[in-house]
């Protein structure tokens, strides 16, 4: 390998180095965590912010996109924060995390009998070894940065055999123009059944940066529904990562809905540690104006007999850029793996762009893997059919776009969350053209 010549640090990288140096003593955690922070920051410095030549980040060049970094949020601020309800009508318990601090007084923990909820800070102080375990193999600059600077979040423990009927929302709120680094830890026991909802929001017009890393493990035969709604403020940068490992016969269904932020990236990494596990991974992106949204996926079939289904849909209007990078790896012993990945982009305007890179990396021979990708505009023939039946153009387009996205949203297999997300999609379409492109 050639040594990559290290280019001079960008202004953002410089700022981060200064901020880390200033904050390292104030950041929470045991000595072991403090040492891990140092190592993580060294790893980040070695990697630098991802750029065009960082293959997994190819289409999201943070070196160019992140010009400055706002001050770090460390265990303060946001006292007067008002947490908006993005999903009215959806019954769920709610854990509110403001700028990385878990806020029990803003939360609603009813209906979660048996579930243990602790602020992540407690785990950091105890030096809980589970922190950092799932993300260890990732070698991703943004995740390393989070490991160095994480200030808190929540830890959720769902015991074995628990059946939690009420969905659990982790509401991530950023209060002002800060850089927040949130870490969550979710442990789901064997045979448990749970629905997790991740939401992300913050003030409009505020150039805040949210870096959220969630580590999760799901036990044998657990059934997990996990939905993420990224509805950050329009000037925000959202960098979200979920690293989850699934065990024998686990069923894991995940949906990401991306609609907010100026620049956003949602990474999901799924590792199979037990046989006969099944993952359904779905995504829907709706962006416009100058928004840039990137969904990245890493599926690691490390053991035999795993199945995965991926369906990603993106709608781009205005000058928006949609990105999907997916990677399915089938390791040498992972025979009988069955993987299917589909990505579809719909460009609603002349100036929108869509970049796709669906990768298959296969080392086992007895497998069935396929991927597909399409990109295009609304089919004129179908539109004509609707117009000829007296449906106005705007309404016809809304109908078609909703149907396009619905396929991915409904893939999650949870009616209540699906309905709530489809409502968001309809609202987004209803305001189409009203915003300045």
């Amino acid at each position, binding site marked *: *390998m*050639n040594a990559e010549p290290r280019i001079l640090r960008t202004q953002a990288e410089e700022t981060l180095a200064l901020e880390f140096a200033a904050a390292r003593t104030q950041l929470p955690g045991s000595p072991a965590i403090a040492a891990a922070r140092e190592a993580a920051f060294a790893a980040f410095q070695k990697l630098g912010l991802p750029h065009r030549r960082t*293959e997994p980040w*190819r289409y999201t060049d943070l070196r160019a996109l992140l010009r400055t970094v706002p001050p770090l949020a460390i265990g303060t601020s946001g006292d007067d924060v008002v947490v908006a309800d993005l999903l009215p009508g959806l019954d769920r318990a709610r854990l509110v995390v403001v700028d990385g601090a878990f806020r029990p007084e803003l939360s609603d923990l009813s209906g979660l009998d048996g579930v243990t909820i602790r602020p992540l800070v407690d785990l950091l102080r105890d030096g809980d070894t589970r922190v950092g375990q799932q993300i260890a193999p990732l070698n991703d600059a943004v995740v390393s940065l989070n490991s160095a600077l994480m200030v808190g979040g929540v830890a959720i423990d769902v015991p074995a055999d628990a059946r939690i009927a009420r969905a659990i929302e982790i509401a991530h709120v950023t209060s002002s123009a800060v850089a927040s680094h949130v870490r969550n830890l979710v442990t789901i026991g064997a045979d448990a059944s749970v629905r997790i909802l991740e939401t992300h929001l913050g003030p409009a017009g505020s150039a805040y940066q949210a870096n959220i890393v969630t580590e999760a493990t799901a036990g044998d035969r657990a059934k997990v529904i996990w939905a993420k709604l990224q509805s950050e403020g329009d000037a925000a940068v959202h960098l979200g990562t979920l690293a989850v490992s699934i065990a024998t016969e686990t069923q894991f269904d995940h949906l990401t809905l991306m609609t907010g932020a100026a620049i956003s990236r949602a990474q999901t990494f799924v590792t199979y540690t037990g046989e006969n596990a099944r993952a359904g991974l779905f995504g829907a992106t709706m962006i416009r104006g100058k928004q840039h949204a990137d969904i990245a996926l890493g599926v690691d079939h490390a053991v035999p007999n795993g199945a995965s289904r991926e369906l990603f849909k993106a709608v781009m209007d205005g000058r928006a850029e949609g990105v999907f990078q997916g990677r399915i790896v089938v390791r*040498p012993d992972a*025979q009988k793996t069955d993987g299917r990945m589909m990505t579809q*982009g719909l*460009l*609603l*305007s*002349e*100036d*929108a*762009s*869509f*970049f*796709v*890179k*669906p*990768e*298959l*990396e*296969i*080392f*086992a*021979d*007895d*497998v*069935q*893997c*396929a*991927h*597909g*990708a*399409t*990109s*295009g*505009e609304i089919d004129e023939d179908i539109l004509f059919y609707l117009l000829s039946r007296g449906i106005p153009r705007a309404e016809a387009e809304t109908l078609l776009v909703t149907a396009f996205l619905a396929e991915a949203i409904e893939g999650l297999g949870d009616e209540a969350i699906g309905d709530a997300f489809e409502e968001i999609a309809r609202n987004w379409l209803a305001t189409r053209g009203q915003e300045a492109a």
Partner: protein
Amino acid sequence: MPAIQETVDQVRQIDVDQYKYGFVTDIESERAPKGLSEDIVRFISAKKNEPEWMLEWRLDAYRRWLTMTEPAWSRVQYPKIDFDDLYYYSAPKSTSGPKSLDEVDPELLAMYEKLGIPLREREILAGVEGASDRRVAVDAVFDSVSVVTTFKEELKKAGVIFCAISEAIREYPEIVKKYLGSVVPVTDNFYATLNSAVFSDGSFVYIPEGVRCPMELSTYFRINERNTGQFERTLIIAEKGAYVSYLEGCTAPMRDENQLHAAVVELVALEDAEIKYSTVQNWYPGDKDGKGGIYNFVTKRGDCRGDRSKISWTQVETGSAITWKYPSCILRGDDSQGEFYSIAVSNGYQQVDSGTKMLHLGKNTKSRIISKGIAAGRSDNTYRGLVSAHRKASGARNFTNCDSLLIGDKCGAHTVPYIESKNASAVFEHEATTSKIADDQLFYCLQRGLSSEEAVALIVNGFVKDVIQQLPMEFAVEAQKLISISLEGSVG
């Protein structure tokens, strides 16, 4: 199934890892001193009697190359190449340049005969019976020089220029100056820049306006000398409304050390022109332990410069220790079309990282990619492709299908497509599958009395059929045999 039976029979006759073109021709040759420097570049240029501008062009490239670093992004692994440990020029002593067949060293002619390459005019390509009316003009390149070009006179009558590129630089400097480096710029990439500095020979084809080339053109590349790198350069220009079909074949002796082959191929299609470029790549792949073999690092690119022009790449990749190439189409003209049909077979320790790029720049441009990868043994087979539509490429259309077949559990098959659409009306479709030969298909064949080798050959031939159909007939037969041979030893 006569063709299949034939392939199976052929496979039987051959021992594992026997490469039938692996012989060395004992011929006295003249080489440049080992290593690379400005002096070597001057030496090559002087050997070719090149005009001053060409030498300058090479030297510029060489100086540029010194500032570049080797790319490392592909999914192939090999020890670092010592560019100072190679001979950059080697030519049979008896032949200083292409001349008439009578003057060619009989030893060389014997070699080409052994390879089944018809250098005597009116001979036909081996392997096809009842095709005596079909003639193919051949440019034979041996190490660093073009030995002979056949049918030159007849082609000239049609206005077609088909000669060694070194000859074209002397005879047709205006055309060469206009097009050389216009598709693959000197600074394009590490290996293309190296090639620009030290390229030795290759073919030059010019089809004038409105001419349909009266016969298939073909270049046969042979590396013979030890420790040499072959750096060929091919330039094909099809003027308005012209048509040409060009075939390329290549072999090398079996040697323990790895040899470098870094070619550059440039195609230019003007308005309404069509170029069909077919390759059967059968460089020595190394022995069964992965020792030896050719590093095939090639830059191939076609420019559909005129409206309604068309460039079609067809490749059958069975040889080389490492194949690293992406024959591409720049679809610049409105309504232009690009096609890429590929079969890449890897066995033993071979590594393939190949695919294509379809760059849609003009309006209503169309492209089609069909790629079939077959991995066996301990090989790695990667498809890497880019399809992009630029802002102005309204109505662009692409269909991509890449399928991989795995034979055995020690090999890897990978698919890395890049799709970049900056135009709403561009419609791109991509599909890819990876699987092994289905047990039920095998069972069906076995149950009808085929042996497992026959069954695999039958299924594999069915798998690659879409691509084989795109090859000129002479090559299709050859390709089918090659695929079976490459997979020899991988069944059971």
